[in-house]
Structure formats: C-alpha cells, structure tokens
C-alpha cells in the first residue's frame, strides 16, 4: 500500500483486515456483513407477510369461524414473548459486558439468553401441539398455512440464533473474546435483536391484529 508505515504495521490497523477497529473507521467487515444478511432476511419475511396480508384480504371471515378463538394473545405465546424480549435485554447486557472485558458477566448473560431462547422454542413446539389438536394445521386453509409458515420460519431463525449463541458461549468460555476482538458476539447479538423484532411484528399481526 502507499504512504507511511507506522499505522499500517499491525493487522489491527490494516485497512483491509476489517477488524472491529478499522484503520479507516466505521464498522468492521463481519458486522457489515451481518447487517446486510439481516436486510435479506427482512425481505424474506416481507414476502411471507405479503402473502399473509393478501390471503387475509381475500378470505372472509378472517379468522375463519372455526378458528375464531384458536390464537389467543394471552395463551402460551404470551410468556414466550416476554421471555424473548427479556433475552434481547440479556443479550445486550452480554455485549456490553465483553466491551468492558467483563468476561464472567458476558458468559453469564449469554448463557441466560441461550436458555431463554431454548425456552421460547420449547413453548412454541408445545403450542403447536395444542393448536394441532384444535384442528389448526398447515392444511387448514389459508389461515392455517400462513400461520404455520410465518411462525415456523421465525422459529427456524430462532433455532439458528440459538446455535449462534451456543457457539459464542463456547468460544467465550474458551477465552477467545476480548474487548478488542468480539465481532462474533456483536454480530450474533444484532441477529438476535432482529429475531426478537420479527417476533414482535408476528405476535402483533397474528394475535392482536388477527
């Protein structure tokens, strides 16, 4: 590269290394990559939401009479929602901890986040079982198909996030993160917040807006 040497000798300052503290400033490559990936995931859910709203507009009544009270806003999904929101808070606590080099605090917080995420998934599966026994299945007309497609893909994203949290927790316990190098933690937390926001949107649309 051109110009002077001092600022460019270590990998941390290399303009092409793209680490958390890039020589030219701005966010690092992996975090920009995660933000762009989340943009694509938002568009994926946009397609599913478009199908939901189109189906809802074309079918009357909505919900269909036989499912008028099947999706209850204060049913099992309510505690699940609370847990997921809290998990976003604990995730951010974990990120702030590693930014201060508080490794113990970081591991605790990510551990709690992971547990809350798993609980969300378990409640979701349990709820699916209840709904199936009430006749709301994937094949139960547009109402059922859109419900399971939207929540199912959200659940798949939560599952992916749980894997990421598990990896981050493992690596954290192995001492691989510090305040200067923890891109994976930042990226995972951004993804986890995205998963939470999508759920807020889903919960509001499916259970409140109906």
């Amino acid at each position, binding site marked *: 590269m051109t110009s002077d040497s001092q600022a460019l000798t270590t990998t941390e300052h290399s303009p092409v290394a793209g680490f958390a503290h890039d020589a030219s400033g701005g966010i690092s*490559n992996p975090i*920009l990559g995660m933000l*762009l990936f989340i943009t*694509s995931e938002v568009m994926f859910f946009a397609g*599913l939401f478009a*199908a939901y709203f189109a189906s809802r507009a074309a079918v009357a009544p909505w919900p269909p009479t036989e499912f008028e009270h099947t999706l209850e806003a204060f049913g099992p999904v309510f505690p699940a929602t609370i847990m997921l929101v809290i998990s976003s808070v604990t995730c951010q606590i974990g990120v702030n901890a590693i930014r201060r080099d508080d490794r113990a605090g970081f591991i605790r917080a990510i551990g709690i986040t992971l547990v809350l995420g798993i609980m969300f998934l378990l409640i979701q599966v349990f709820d699916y079982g209840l709904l199936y026994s009430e006749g709301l299945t*994937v094949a139960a007309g547009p109402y059922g198909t859109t419900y399971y*497609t939207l929540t199912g893909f959200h659940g798949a994203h939560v599952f992916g996030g749980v894997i990421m949290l598990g990896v981050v927790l493992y690596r954290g316990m192995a001492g691989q993160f510090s305040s200067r190098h923890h891109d994976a933690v930042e990226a995972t937390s951004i993804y986890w917040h995205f998963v939470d926001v999508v759920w807020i949107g889903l919960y509001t649309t499916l259970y409140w807006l109906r």
Partner: protein
Amino acid sequence: MATTAPALTPAASGYRSGLYEWLTTTDHKKIGILYVVNSFIFFFLGGLLALGVRTELAQPGLQFLADENLYNELFTMHGTVMIFLFIIPMLVGFGNYVVPLQVGAPDMAFPRINALSFWMLPLAGTLLFLGFATGGAAAAGWTSYSPLAQDRPLGSVGPGQDLWIVGLILVGTSSILGSINFLVTIFKMRAPGMTLFRMPILVWTVLVTSVLVLMATPVLTSALVMLFIDRNYGGSFFDPANGGNAVLWQNVFWFYSHPAVYIMVLPAMGMISEILPVFSRKPLFGYKAFVFATAGIGALGFSVWAHHMFTTGSVYLPFFSLMTFLIAVPTGVKMFNWIFTLFRGKLTFSTPLLFALGFLSMFLIGGINGAFSAAVPVDFALHDTYWVVAHLHYVLFGGSVFGVFAGVYFWFPKMTGRMLGEGLGKVQFVLMFIGFNLTFFPMHALGLSGMPRRIADYASDAGWNELNLAATVGGFLIAASILPFLWNVFVSLRSGKPAGDDPWEGNTLEWATSSPPPPYNFDHLPEIRSERPVFDLRHGRAGSGH
C-alpha cells in the same frame, strides 16, 4: 508493478494448479474462473435445450417429441438454466475476478463464503436436471404459475417441480451470500485514494446489482418456499381449489423476477463501460450521469413488476405502465453515455469492441420493443406471444450475452496470460451476430401475427411456417458460432500470444499487475486520483480530477 517473467508460461501462481487446489480454493480469481467455466457449461446445456425447442418448431406438426409435456420440460428448463445457472452466475464470476482487482484489494471480504457460494451452483444444477431422470423435469415454465405448478391432476405431479424449487432456493442463497460479499468488499476494501466516484463503472454496476440481489432474491425464496408448502404439506397459498390465490404467486414471483432482469444486465453494461473507453481511447462520457442512471434503474426496477401481469385484471395499470416507460429514461441516458464515448474516439476494432458494438445495437432494439409493450393496450395484444420472446432475447442475448463475450475477450488475457485469437474471435462474432438476428428478429412478426408462446406445435395454415424455419436455422447458426470460440480458447490456452501486464492499454487497476496476477494481487498500487489510475500512470497526469 509485479513483473512478468520473460518465459512464456503463466506465472507459477496462476491457474495451472492441481485439482485439490481448484476444489478448495478461496482465491477470488480462481473462484471467478470456476464460476465462468461452470456458467459456460450450463450455457451449452441451456442451448441444447433451446435447439430441442427450435427443432420441434421448425415445421408444423409434432415431428420429434413423443408428447407435448416433454416440450414443456424443454422450454421450462431452457429458461431456468439460462437465467439462474448461466447468465447470473456468469456475471457474478466476472465480478468475482475483476472487482477486487479493480478496487485494489487482495481478495473479496469473505473468501470462504465466496467458495461456498460457488460450490452451491453445480449442486443446484444437478438437482434441477435430476428431474429428467425422476419422471420428468419441471414443466410449468420458468415462471411456474399456479395452479399448473401445483401437485394435482393436470398440474405438475412428481418430484421434478420440487427439485426445481429446491435447486432454485440453493441458487438464490448462493446469490445472496455473493451480494453480501460484493457489498462489503466494495464499501470497505477499496485502496487508499479510491473514493466512490473514482471507482470503475463495472464496480458501480456490481454494487447496484448486489443491492438488487440482496433485496429481491429473498422474496423469490419466500415464493418458492410457499409453493413447496402448497405442493407437499397441503398448503393454501396459491391453489384456488384449496382456498389460495393464483395471482398472489404472480405478484410475489415478479417482485423478484423483474429486478432480476436488471441483475442480468447491469454488470454486462458495466463491462461494456470498461471496454468502450479502452477501445475508443477516451474516458467514458458522463461518468456521474452513468452512475446515477444505474442507481435510478436499480431503484425504479422495484416499481414495475406488475407489467408482467397486465392481463390478469388485478393490476393498477396506469401506475405500472408509467413506471415502465419511466425506466426507459435512465437506460436511454446510458445509451448516450456509450455513444458519446465512441464519438470522435480513436477506435480499434478488436473483438471486445465488436461484441460491445453488438451489445449497443441489439440492446437498443430490445429496449425499443420493450417500450412498445409498456403501453397497456399493446401489451393486451402481445402478452404471451412471440413478441415477448423476441424482446427478452434481444435484451438478454443481444445485450447480456454479447456483453459477456466482450468481457471474455477483454479479460481472458488477464486471467490466463494469453491473448485469444483475433481471427477466430471475429469469425465467432459474425456467425453469432447473424445467427442471433436470424433466430429472433422474425419473432417480432410472429408475435404481431398472433403466435403464442410455449406451444409445441402450430397450425400449418397460420402463416408461421417460413419464419419458424428461419428462426431454427438461426438457432443452429448460433450453435455453430460456439465452435470457433471453443477452438479459440483451446488453442490460445496452449499457445496464444503472451499478454503481458496490459495488452490493451487499459485504464483500471487490474492492468497494473501481472497476467495472471499473483495470489495477493498487487505488489504495489499506483496513485489513485481518478477512475483511470493506470491511464494516469501511463501518461504521467494527475487524472481528470474527480
């Protein structure tokens, strides 16, 4: 500057490495070549499928195909393969090779994800073609409308359509990962001095294309997933018999597939915009206008999708017609950029320039016949006729494919250290240009006289016989033009003229290193003060002051 060895063999760090290296490489240059070679293989397969279509249509009557469903498989797979396995990955391949070099970076931002993106493609292609061996490939058109695409009698029964869905989800994922790679590379890894408005135009077009891929492709993924649920889990998205909405598929599908056509053409326009200045010995006319026009096409491209659905009765016609006419404006701006680049230039009619001129003339025709279709009453008459087939091939073949071949002849020397033969190149160009026009120009008349798309046979007294025969002859001429190309590649790889660093007196950074470049791309970079750093280095100027 990395010096070329005096010997005639390519640098040891070039492409002649072992199989293991090729299977496991994360080097953007090798991955780019893998993309290009893989894409050409699918180009030939897609071409064979087209020859199957044209052979059957040459004369009225069903001569060669046992049943019409096989014909449906041929045109479905032809469209699918050409779009998803040829043109899009081919342009990604060129982007992969050239963009890091042009921004002065040592590689893409995420080299391992880059390799993953590539290797998903041969897998996806295999899945798509497996349909032929498992009871019939997808046969519902590349547009896969419901209820024809549903798993029910008179629909698409059997695994072929499901393999098609899964194959395309893989291709889409590969594309999206690639777009993330390009965007991070372009935004974060440019060499010092290269501001956004000093980037080569090809980098700009790849940037805008990557934004389109990032935002539009996931919508296709969602549509494919929903269709899969309909077909395999009793879903009710698109099947009217099940409470679904067939027009919903069309909306979600075209929301992706319209931006897709810009994905298929913008990088080719970028390549032309690199080639025309070099062979006119003039800078691109109106660099900033071109950049804004490209961004405008990208943005407007999201607002026109329902012009594919005018005849459904479910579309707000004035809006989509207006936006479709509007998108012709930035496209026209670019035509003037290119023409005024050539104007009063010192032209060298090498093969890259011939293909670039072919692009300009043929894309112009495709743009004009598209503008006709933007008028709703015209579209009402011409929708689903051969007029549309003419339009799409003039922009995608006359446009993108000619752009690809221009790029091949232009960058082959950089990739291999050897020049492609000019004689054979010109033979290919002439044969391909004549063959292409003979195939597709008659389709304007066929469409205007009412010949529908996607029919295996037609009445012998419809008046379509001669033009169909002419189109078939043209198709075989295109196939024939591939032979001098393949021979050219084969001979040039072995004993082509050594290229040196900069055989064309190029403008951009890839010409500032050896051919092929070392794995790390550059030993050192020239000063970057304009969009033509190598030109500035050669002529000792501070640049045109961007």
